[in-house]
């Protein structure tokens, strides 16, 4: 039992759709528009980790084919009013694959509120934030697609809820090479995708000034320790007037530290990659890892998938690889 995870041509993908395969697709908007209606969900992105290495590709579609792994499925789209119901629609003992359009209201709502969704951690929710060619920022918008209807959304999320055979379960894991550094403890008084002020070891400070004065490398994320799981919040921009913007929200009541530097991403990654990838049904990695670690043309083991504008491992994370395996009970 193995899913296919690779870049394919539009005719190849349409052949899969025509044969009723159940798919999660990733591709540039122009190619997703050429895919026939069928049993698939899709998200826009032109960056991938393919079996030959990291690449940008606007002609092909990255295909994750669940058909031989799952026993049932349903595809649902959600707007900002009903997004929180997504956890109630999961199959017991299954998993959900969630796509959320980047820079949208629903992206921010999901990130800020997902922690309060019903029984969030009971059934795996994996997915990613969709994106665009970085050279088109401000000119185009990330989208998701409900393949059943062929509808493209800028401000709705789409999920493929899957059930599994009774003797199987899905396991969602992350590979995060960053860990908390030994520096100051940073907290925030409010949840948000930006912050003017923070508390550094309990003392209120202007966060932008703190970053500038301490010459902090903003390629290093803020890292929170969730009972051993290192959860990153990446820094998007630092502006002395507007404050510091993030790619995922900082949350009050959570303690953050600036990450320790990772000197060689590929070498470090290959040291922690799971030995057995046969059970992996899908993965994604962060556009910031792709950029900062110059992953173009380089491989991250055998794990392939879209390079995304945010990764979903129950909650929104940054600078993290997320993958899911199907295990025997």
């Amino acid at each position, binding site marked *: 039992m193995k899913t296919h995870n690779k870049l394919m041509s539009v005719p190849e993908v349409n052949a899969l759709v025509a044969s009723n395969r159940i798919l999660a697709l990733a591709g540039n908007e122009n190619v997703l528009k050429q895919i026939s209606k069928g049993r698939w969900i899709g998200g826009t992105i032109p960056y991938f980790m393919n079996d030959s290495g990291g690449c940008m590709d606007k002609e092909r579609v990255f295909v994750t084919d669940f058909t031989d792994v799952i026993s049932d499925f349903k595809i649902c789209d959600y707007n900002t009013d009903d997004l929180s119901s997504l956890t109630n629609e999961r199959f017991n003992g299954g998993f959900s694959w969630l796509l959320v359009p980047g820079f949208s209201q629903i992206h921010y709502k999901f990130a800020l509120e997902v*922690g309060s969704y019903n029984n*969030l*951690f*009971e059934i*795996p929710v994996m997915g990613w934030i969709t994106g665009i060619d970085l050279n088109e920022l401000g000119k185009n918008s990330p989208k998701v697609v409900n393949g059943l209807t062929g509808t493209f959304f800028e401000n709705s999320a789409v999920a493929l809820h899957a059930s599994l055979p009774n003797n199987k*379960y899905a*396991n*969602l*894991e*992350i590979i995060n090479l960053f860990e908390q550094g030994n520096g100051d403890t940073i907290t925030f008084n409010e949840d948000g995708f930006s912050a003017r002020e923070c508390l550094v070891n309990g003392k209120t400070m202007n966060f932008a000034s703190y970053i500038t004065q301490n010459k902090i490398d903003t390629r290093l994320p803020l890292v929170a320790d*969730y*009972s*051993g*799981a290192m959860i990153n919040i990446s820094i998007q921009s630092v502006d002395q007037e507007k404050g510091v913007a993030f790619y995922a929200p900082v949350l009050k*009541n*959570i303690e953050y530290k600036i990450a320790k530097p990772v000197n060689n991403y590929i070498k470090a990654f290959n040291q922690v990659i799971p030995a057995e990838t046969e059970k992996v049904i899908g993965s994604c990695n962060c556009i910031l890892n792709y950029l900062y670690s110059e992953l173009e043309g380089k491989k991250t083991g055998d794990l392939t998938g879209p390079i995304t504008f945010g990764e979903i*491992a*129950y*909650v929104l994370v940054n600078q993290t690889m997320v993958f899911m395996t199907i*295990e025997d*009970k």
Partner: protein
Amino acid sequence: MVPEISRREWEDIVSGKINPKLTSLSLQMKLNNLQLSIRLKKTDVKYAAIELHSFCSEREKMYEKDLNMIFNVEKV
């Protein structure tokens, strides 16, 4: 077999008295959520321990390694 709810470790782990190095992401996230709820007084240690026990009981195979660490082998 998931250890009985009467075992002291259930309350010790949700209260942070013991901090075993867990490996399963969903268990880490669940535990963090329960510990945060205790800190914010949305729940108490006893109820959180019962919830964690129930959570693990439904996924015994998935958390086998972590449960062994908590109850049998290693406490960090």
